[in-house]
């Protein structure tokens, strides 16, 4: 009997350990852009930012992805953030920690403007 109980305890321990490592990981992986509660996404294409108006709560990370066939540089008007040159499929992320309206533009093509409103 003792032996069977010991096997059960071991099995339970292994299953618990397995669940904690492998099972939890997929949930953790959902946190960035795919999970709207955790982040916002902006697509850059055809020389424009979409959506051009993003409203987010304080602490949200916005991720810009360039889908255009030219590079773009995401830069805030007040010099708060500036990405490296983003070629096609490159990303840039920034976490907004203070409320406010943040106008940003493409530093290479300054006619491209958009904003992030943080509440």
């Amino acid at each position, binding site marked *: 009997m003792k032996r069977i109980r010991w096997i059960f305890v071991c099995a339970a321990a292994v299953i618990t350990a397995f669940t904690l490592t492998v099972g939890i990981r997929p949930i953790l992986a959902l946190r960035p852009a795919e999970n709207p509660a955790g982040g916002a996404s902006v697509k850059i294409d055809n020389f424009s930012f979409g959506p051009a108006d993003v409203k987010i709560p304080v602490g949200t990370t916005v991720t810009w992805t360039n889908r255009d*066939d030219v590079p773009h540089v995401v830069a805030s008007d007040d010099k708060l953030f500036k990405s490296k040159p983003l070629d096609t499929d490159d990303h840039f992320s920034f976490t907004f920690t203070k409320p406010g309206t943040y106008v940003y533009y493409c530093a*290479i093509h300054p006619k491209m403007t958009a904003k992030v409103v943080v509440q």
Partner: protein
Amino acid sequence: MADFIRDNINKDGIDRRGFLQCMAWAGTGVLYTLHGGILKSLPLMQGAANSEHMAKMKGADFSFIQISDSHIGFSKEANPDVTATLQIAVDRINSATAPPDFLLHTGDISQLSKPSEFDTAEQVLKGAKAGKIFYVPGEHDVLTDDGQQYLDRFGKGTKGKGWYSFDHKGAHFIGLVNVVDLKAGGLGSLGSDQLKWLQDDVKQLKSSTPVIVFAHIPLWAVYPEWGWGTDDSEQALGYLKRFGSVSVLNGHIHQIMQKVEGNVTFHTALSTAFPQPAPGTAPSPGPMKVPADQLRSVLGISHVNFVQGQHSLAIVDSPLAQS
């Protein structure tokens, strides 16, 4: 070859008979000449015959070539090999019977300001039999470290972010930088420091001195919706108002556009990398795909001929191939 210039009545190198004979040639180059502010264009042949024609027509005191928007590092459908097309442009430069006095590169040398891209561009251009190469940066050349790399490579002897001037055989050349410190929602920008320098630079010149200004983004409002213009170019042009002959050579838009306003002729050059759509004909000004066998006909260089005493430059835009 027939001598098709017979009666040089106005001493402008062409007469009606000659014009009609010129028209008979299917050409890939187009000669724009200005006489008294009126634009005339004539088709010309490529290569050696072109230069002969040019020599006959103008007896040019000197010539130079404008090359632009090589975008080394770009590698998408619109042109998977921009290095190869830049090499073709260099081959075209070298095929002229008379080498140009120098080259002017009006910017976007690289695609992403990467050292390897600048290296490749310099390597290819080194093969041009053209004396010196003068550069001004495009917005693609100043993407990292505030354009310091551009200055290190091409900015020796320049001021500020890379502006400068030089004299050549009686003409005054001014290289301007309108691609740094761009503001949200704005166009190209020269900035107050550069404008102050420009005002000073031309102060001592006689109004009869021919002035040639070159900068990347057009110094006139080609199409502001697409950023094709410079916010403070009016101020710059104001300093040049008194000059009898001003030519403005730009790039950035990857197509030929011309405008004449009083004594000022504006001209934009083709790219050696890829074409862009005409204003408003596409959702955005990005690289425009054309059938592969047509690509070379929408890329090109500009031969510029300067004749002492003439009102303006004669500019010949030469596509890399016949379409």
